């Protein structure tokens, strides 16, 4: 089977959607330029025409709003924000309009829009070019928030998002783009059926992450096993709606919970995962207090020296997990 990267899997999703669904079009800034979105959109404008791949002025709010409008007129637009920091300009079309549209009109009209926000961190880019804001959107009723971590999910969850009949925030992370894996035939999955999944079964601790954090958790598996820790690893995949069942059952089995998130801690997805476990798992099952590792509660630094301290790394993660085993209840 041919090997794909995470980024070419996204490209594969676009090709599948544009080929099979004439109502799909893609709109956003920089879509006719190769360097904005890596190779995730390579040559799409050449292959499908500039009418379906629309490059835009720097007008995030109007462009996102126009895509919401187009979806109300039977199209299936994908809006691309090459850096999700700029999505802040589009908060009204996303949070006030798209997310509320179905509810406030009694389910009679629904924007079937996909908004792709790309997380683009590191490289001394600083506070306004480095944000992972998935938790912000997961707070809003009416938005589905999808975060693929695997190569196959990068493609199949994008297809599922676009074919769904509601607003979806699809967030991919540039730090995953070079990840390689085999890619089976594209499939159409109903977004409603997307749940977190167990990537590795284990019995001594439940590790939960999404997007790049899941990748990091996979990276440390061997070291944990060497230290006689047999982890169960769960990839969230979708954080709104929040599905707690898999995590609850896993924690009942392992008695320990560690959450890794590339966003901030307060009011973030890590808070939600831990509070749902505490609410749903009887205290007697816990062998240790749940723990998490998130970004320090500061904006992203620019300096390379500070960046090294800022983002989670193998050593920091392992130290946190080892501590859980020291603090048995």
């Amino acid at each position, binding site marked *: 089977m041919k090997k794909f990267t995470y980024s070419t899997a996204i490209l594969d999703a676009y090709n599948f959607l544009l080929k099979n669904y004439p109502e799909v079009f893609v709109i956003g800034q920089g879509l006719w330029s190769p360097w904005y979105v890596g190779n995730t959109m390579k040559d799409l404008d050449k292959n499908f025409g500039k009418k*379906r791949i629309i490059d835009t002025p720097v007008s995030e709010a109007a462009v996102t709003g*126009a895509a919401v*409008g*187009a979806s109300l007129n039977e199209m299936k637009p994908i809006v691309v924000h090459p850096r999700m920091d700029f999505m802040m300009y589009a908060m009204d079309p996303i949070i*006030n309009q798209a997310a509320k549209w179905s509810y406030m009109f009694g*389910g009679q*009209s*629904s924007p079937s829009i996909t908004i792709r926000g790309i997380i683009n961190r590191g490289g001394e880019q600083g506070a306004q070019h480095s944000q992972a804001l998935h938790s912000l959107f997961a707070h809003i009723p*009416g938005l589905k928030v999808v975060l693929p971590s695997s190569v196959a999910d990068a493609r199949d969850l994008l297809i599922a998002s676009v074919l769904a009949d509601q607003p979806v925030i699809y967030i991919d992370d540039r730090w995953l783009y070079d990840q390689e894996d085999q890619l089976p035939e594209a499939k159409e999955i109903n977004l409603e059926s997307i749940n977190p999944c167990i990537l590795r079964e284990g019995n001594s601790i439940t590790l939960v992450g999404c997007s790049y954090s899941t990748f990091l958790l996979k990276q440390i598996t061997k070291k944990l096993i060497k230290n006689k820790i047999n982890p169960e690893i769960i990839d969230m995949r979708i954080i709104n709606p929040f599905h707690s069942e898999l995590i609850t059952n896993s924690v009942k089995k392992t008695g320990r919970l560690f959450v890794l998130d590339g966003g901030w801690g307060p009011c973030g997805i890590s808070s939600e995962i831990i509070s749902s476990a505490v609410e749903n798992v009887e205290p007697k099952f816990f062998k240790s207090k749940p723990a998490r590792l998130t970004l320090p509660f500061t904006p992203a630094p620019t300096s390379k020296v500070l960046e090294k301290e800022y983002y989670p790394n193998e050593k920091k993660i392992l130290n946190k997990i080892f501590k859980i085993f020291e603090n048995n209840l």
Partner: protein
Amino acid sequence: MKDSNSKEIDSITSEKEINIDNFSRDELLEMLSKMILIRNAEYKIAKGREFGLVGGPVHLGVGQEAIPVGISQYLNNQDKVFGAHRSHSHILSLGIDLKSFFSEILAKSSGISKGMGGSMHLFGGSVGFCGSVPIVGGTVPLAVGTALASKLKEEKVVSISYLGDGAIEEGIVHESLNFARINNCPVIFVVENNLFSSHLNIKLRQPKKLTYRFAKANDIESKVLDGNNLTSICKTGKEFIRRCRDGEGPFFIEALTYRWFGHVDWREDIDVGINRSADDLKYWKKRDPILRLKKSLLKENYFGENHLINLEKDIQKDIDNAWVDALGESSPEWNESLDYVFKSNYK
């Protein structure tokens, strides 16, 4: 001292009867009926609000009826219309069922938005009304988007974006104008310039009272009109809608008008509106779009006084009946509320 009587406004608006040449009796009568229906329905809502029958805020457009009636005359049910917080007239002019409309104002489950919207969130898919929301300027890019979709689908469908002089001050509107222009979207921006954003007069918010300068800045063809002159709205509406269907959009209409009620609910806001005076209200009531049309029709002998009295009686009867029926409807059930969050949940 009299704010409204600036030369600029005086030169555009008038007290005089209006020119009804080139319009048929039936067409004018139909539009007059719609204007009376809208006005009296809004008076009904105003009373309902004052007496506590309507729970949420209502933004009334009494005095502004000519604009949506003139525009809607040339639209069909495939066209896409968006409004904002003051949109009773926009959806009523498209011919929405009156009882379902009142039911929504009263937040009943048989309402046009299933009782989930109330006065500020109106929906009428069957008449081409895509939605109205109270976030000022919020639907402007959405109308551009439905127009973009029409263009991509190569359909001769027009989108209408109703906005006010307050919404013009939102950044998203300017992005939308530019985006619509560079993509030649078949959308018409209809600015109902009633000189007030909530409580504040436009002269305290903008360097000029007219907003069409923003259309000019974005290279969009525009016209400034007396918004209380039905046939003038009709003429421009008809032309721009036809040219939009032929792929010449976007266009921008600025219609000068005035609301007789204050920003919200049944009061006149003479006391709270900054630079809103009793004199102004009197000045504008002389420019009543309905009265001016009636005068022209009577003068040209299109019908007599008695005909007019009977027409108004019939309309009032319809309004009273629809209101009473709507009052008797039931409220939405709590369990529906969760179902509506996502369309896929809606059974």
